[in-house]
């Protein structure tokens, strides 16, 4: 458990760069190459977007980064560390946290408990301490509870702490997923379509929140999104994927003017969403 006297937001050494580096990452499913030759470098407090048509392999890349799939080729470094022999749990501990395209909350647990699962590795008492209710248990639980409420307060969700996660409205479920991911104390946060199903005012709010999280926690954010307003509005770098291959990388302006990207994804209408 972290020392309670230390500030709520962990300090991060921002000189260590980059936070995520992928070199020629690729995966095959049977004979089919889903992702090939994927290179990206994300700086410590960068907000980076990943766009591309449906089926381009965006979520597959997230699954590769979080080791839900083991890559067939290439390597990936988290804050300089090679993730070769890590599994999903290992890369999370090494500093990567994610949300899911189809929300995966612990629906039958309360909102607070969901965040506490995110804080699991922050608590250090053992099974013995649990069964005999040793002081280490009480102390760790109390600190974790306070911390969970602090995390929930980022989105003003403290009042929902005792509700079942499954009973929350859709937008709050998405926010709770982000809170749970943040609770694992990541260096980089992966958001898989965070604005899916949101109207334009909710999307605006989300954009502000993403910026707020980045500034508060000093973390990098890598997001998949179809909403071009969001991507072009907050991302500092954008990568475009088509048929499992990167076709362009650059600032939002570069991407909007890239003829290949316009042809593959954006369309000649310019900047409008194609996949509703």
């Amino acid at each position, binding site marked *: 458990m972290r020392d309670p006297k230390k500030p709520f937001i962990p300090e991060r050494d921002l000189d260590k760069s980059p936070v995520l580096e992928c070199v020629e990452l690729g995966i095959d499913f049977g004979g089919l190459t889903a992702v090939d030759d994927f290179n990206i470098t994300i700086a410590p407090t960068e907000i980076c977007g990943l766009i591309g048509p449906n089926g381009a392999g965006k979520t597959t890349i997230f699954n590769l980064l979080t080791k839900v799939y083991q890559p067939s080729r290439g390597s990936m470094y988290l804050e300089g560390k090679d993730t070769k022999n890590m599994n999903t749990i290992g890369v999370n501990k090494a500093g990567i946290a994610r949300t899911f395209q189809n929300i995966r909350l612990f629906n039958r647990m309360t909102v607070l408990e969901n965040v*506490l699962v995110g804080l699991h590795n922050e608590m250090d008492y053992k099974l013995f301490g649990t069964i005999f209710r040793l002081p280490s248990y009480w102390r760790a639980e109390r600190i974790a509870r306070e911390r969970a409420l602090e995390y929930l307060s980022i989105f003003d969700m403290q009042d929902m702490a005792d509700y079942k996660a499954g009973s929350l409205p859709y937008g709050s479920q998405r926010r709770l997923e982000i809170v749970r991911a943040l609770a694992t104390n990541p260096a980089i946060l992966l958001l898989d379509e965070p604005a899916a199903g949101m109207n334009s005012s909710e999307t605006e709010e989300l954009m502000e929140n993403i910026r707020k999280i980045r500034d508060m926690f000093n973390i990098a954010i890598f997001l998949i999104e179809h909403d071009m307003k969001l991507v072009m509005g907050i991302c500092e770098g954008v990568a475009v994927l088509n048929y499992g291959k990167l076709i362009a990388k650059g600032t939002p302006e570069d991407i909007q003017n890239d003829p290949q990207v316009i042809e593959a994804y954006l369309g000649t209408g310019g900047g409008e969403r194609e996949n509703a």
Partner: protein
Amino acid sequence: MKQFSLRMPVRYLINACLIIAFLIIGNIITQGELLSRAQNNIIIQVGFFIILAVSLNLSAGYLGQLPLGHAGFMAVGAYTGAIFWRMGVLPDGASVVVGLILAGLAAAVFGIIIGIPALRLKGDYLAIITLGFGEMIRVLINNLPSITGGAQGLAQIPRHSTFLVVYICMVVCCLVIHFIMKSRHGRAILSIRDNEIATESCGVNTTYYKVMAFVVSAFFAGIAGALYAGFLGILVPSDFDFMMSINILMIVVLGGMGSMLGSIVGAIVLTSMPLLMVDLARYRMIVYALLLIIVMIFKPSGLMGTYDFSLSAIIEKIGRRFSSGKVEKEKAQKGGDGNA
């Protein structure tokens, strides 16, 4: 807002009082001539079936897997306890305690051996592999006559399973599992049930917690097995066949998967049923089946759903209602805690 709530020590005190009260009442009833022998036996049987159901509920209800080999762990515990007690190396009191712990540990070891390969699988596959392992244990016991007495069974086991022993084991089992569930370990187990991939992406070692739940479950099944041996005084391998696993699972499902209270209620209802229908003994299985069908139609989540009983929560609820009016008095009575 000011809310009435109980401090943790007060909660523990209330529960401790309740546990002791039940113990005294139970002891008076079973010691005296109030009940017939059959009724006394049922009370003890209810005790170890509660242990079996509550421990199975840990892996079936909370962890969300479907193990069908609970009788196997019970058999390991039963034979370990019985063999140790028959040796009679220790004075009676110590012998009971050591025998029970040994029985639990032996079952837990089998739990690790079976759990590690079995928990790589999910759903039906896990059900079948645990079913197979359960049967393997039974066949193994059948074919080791020099140690276990083989198919003829093991007789003259000291009858250690008095109400007191069974009751203490039951309380310990319920408390330990309750404590585990209200901790980071328990939350990990529950989150695996709800979504395994999300649990892993939160950095929780899912394999470890699955095996842990399975092993704790096996440990208490082993203790229940030893109590079973000490209750009957004779063991035959066929006691621990597939039907025993199904019976335990039936208790859990009837009571409500994921509710400890449900498992306890289920165990009481299903175990004491034969007593209530002495005249209908022949139709017992039909009544069982009907009861299950009716519950599954009208309340598919089981009698208790996932509701768990908390006396303190009820007292707090009453307290809050009172506290709007006579705050002071209520606080003083409950040793209350002002502003929590």
